[in-house]
């Protein structure tokens, strides 16, 4: 029973700020709150509304498409950088490792503000490079790539450090043995290094999926300077926030939060279950 004494403080916070809000969100989502009607029990009406709401569905579609592009981009940059860094021991390599990691220490808000400046036609360097024909990376056509760039910049370094740490944990004697058998450097990278760090890759992928599907900060921060190409329903989280804090529709916003949470949870759980042999996370 001593175990429970050590666990108890965390368990209290867990119940209050994780189980509590989840249950409460579900409860709120079962009601509607009209100005004329007041609070009324509505069953699952909010959910059927959400899953037929074009604003919500387009937001879901946006984050899914975004995840499909941005996650491989981040992971590729992180993996290649980590493999290169793992093969070098120079001072410049050590310096590069820190510089690539630095964006992780910068709040996403500041990162978004900075890239907003760099994209800006008034301040940014693009205007000086391309003149009048400079692309505005937050225009409706370029927005997707503009945001991909911000998010890749923010997170690739963190993923790189995790992969790098995993690579450093491999016993070099294995490479020696492979070289004896005539393996070339890229064969060692693809056949030995990458399979041996698959647990780290699965972990990163899970974090990236959870993070990307709840995409909020960057679009919310860049919204005012995007000339309208970032809408208040661009992602489910931005939509839920605006429903709650601009239109005071807390019941419907709770339904959207809860639906998003459940979808992410189930998706990640299924993914971990399918990859459980490779990942060390679910055992």
């Amino acid at each position, binding site marked *: *029973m*001593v*175990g*429970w004494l*050590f*666990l108890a*403080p*965390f*368990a209290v916070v*867990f119940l*209050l*700020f*994780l189980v*509590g*809000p*989840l249950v409460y969100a579900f409860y709120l989502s079962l009601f509607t709150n009209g100005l004329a009607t007041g609070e009324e029990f509505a069953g699952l009406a909010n959910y059927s509304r959400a899953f037929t709401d074009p604003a919500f569905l387009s937001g879901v579609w946006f984050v899914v498409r975004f995840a499909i592009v941005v996650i491989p981009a981040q992971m590729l*940059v992180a993996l290649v950088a980590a493999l290169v860094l793992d*093969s*070098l021991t*120079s001072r*410049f390599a050590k310096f*590069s490792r820190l*510089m*690539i990691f*630095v964006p992780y*220490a*910068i*709040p996403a*808000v*500041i990162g978004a*503000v*900075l*890239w907003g*400046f760099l994209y800006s036609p008034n*301040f*940014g360097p693009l205007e*000086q490079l391309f003149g009048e024909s400079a692309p505005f990376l937050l225009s409706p056509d370029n927005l997707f790539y503009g945001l991909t760039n911000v998010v890749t*910049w923010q997170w*690739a370094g963190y993923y790189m*450090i995790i992969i790098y740490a*995993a690579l450093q944990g491999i016993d070099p004697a294995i490479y020696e043995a492979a*070289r004896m058998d005539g393996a070339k*450097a890229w064969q060692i990278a693809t056949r030995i290094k990458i399979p041996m760090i698959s647990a*780290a890759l699965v*972990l990163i992928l899970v974090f990236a999926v959870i993070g990307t*599907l*709840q995409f*909020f*900060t960057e679009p919310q*921060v860049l919204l005012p*300077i995007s000339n309208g190409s970032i809408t208040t329903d661009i992602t489910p*989280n931005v939509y839920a*926030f605006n429903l*709650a804090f601009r239109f005071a529709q807390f019941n419907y916003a*709770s339904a959207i*939060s*809860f639906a998003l*949470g459940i979808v*992410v949870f189930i998706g990640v*759980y299924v993914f971990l279950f399918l990859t459980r042999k490779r990942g060390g996370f679910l055992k």
Partner: protein
Amino acid sequence: MSVLSSPVRADDAVDAPRERRARRPRRRRTGSHLFLAFLVLYFVLPLWFLVVASTKTPGGLFNSPNGALWFGEDFALFDNLSTLFTYNDGIYLRWLGNSLLYAFGGGIGATVLAVLAGYAFAKFDFPGRRVSFALLLGAVMVPMTALVIPTFVMLSEVELTNTPWAVILPSMLSPFGVYLMRVYTADGVPDELLDAARMDGAGEFRTFFQVALPLMRPAIVTVLLLSVVGTWNNYFLPLAVLSDSELFPITVGINLWQGLAGANNGGGVSLYTLIVVGSLVSIIPLIAAFLGLQRYWQGGLSIGSLK
């Protein structure tokens, strides 16, 4: 090939690949270093812009003879800093103080809870342990932003919104921190050592504080750093639960200025300059912390993924 019959050739065979190995990486290193240099340029570009822009006068920010990525004619960094710290009765310093309070309050709280819970999961067999741990793993997968709106409504019912507690208390929840502590403690703190302490008559708490805790230090630093950074960088939660700008952390504050700057609401002061200098000042503490604590977190980050 017979090694025994021709020892000279065997030596050659060992030496040859060693030479080739020494030569081959040297040729490739130039390419690798160029690649790294390119990556460094990309990742540092926004920071370089920030440093350069912080030294410009408000006019120079928009119209600099040397472009956005090089210094302007006037060096106005110190003027900009003094404007930053005095604007609106020094609201920026308040935001910085709030960020520190929330980040350390939430971060230290989260770490203490994670250390205790991780130790419980790793070293005790208690009823409900398996179920609790499965719940914990499930919680790692719950997107935290899904909790923000219901947390806001819950806190507003007990009238805790718009107080520091509304940010600090929810930030103390770190299921991943508990997971990291458990994984680290399971191997990093040997059972034999704990049993020996108990045999010598130490109680459970003394065993924990004097034997286990010192051994858990690398993981503690990692979890502390990750949770402090997580809270410092958090935006959605404080944005939702705080409405008084005196209570804002730096992230929400800078965002407030950005919104006002777009609407030209600076009241005679260039908010763009304040945003740039304010961003620069706000990222210095975290970058310093990461550089200073390198040897802890670089190893610590691999805890969860090396299994």
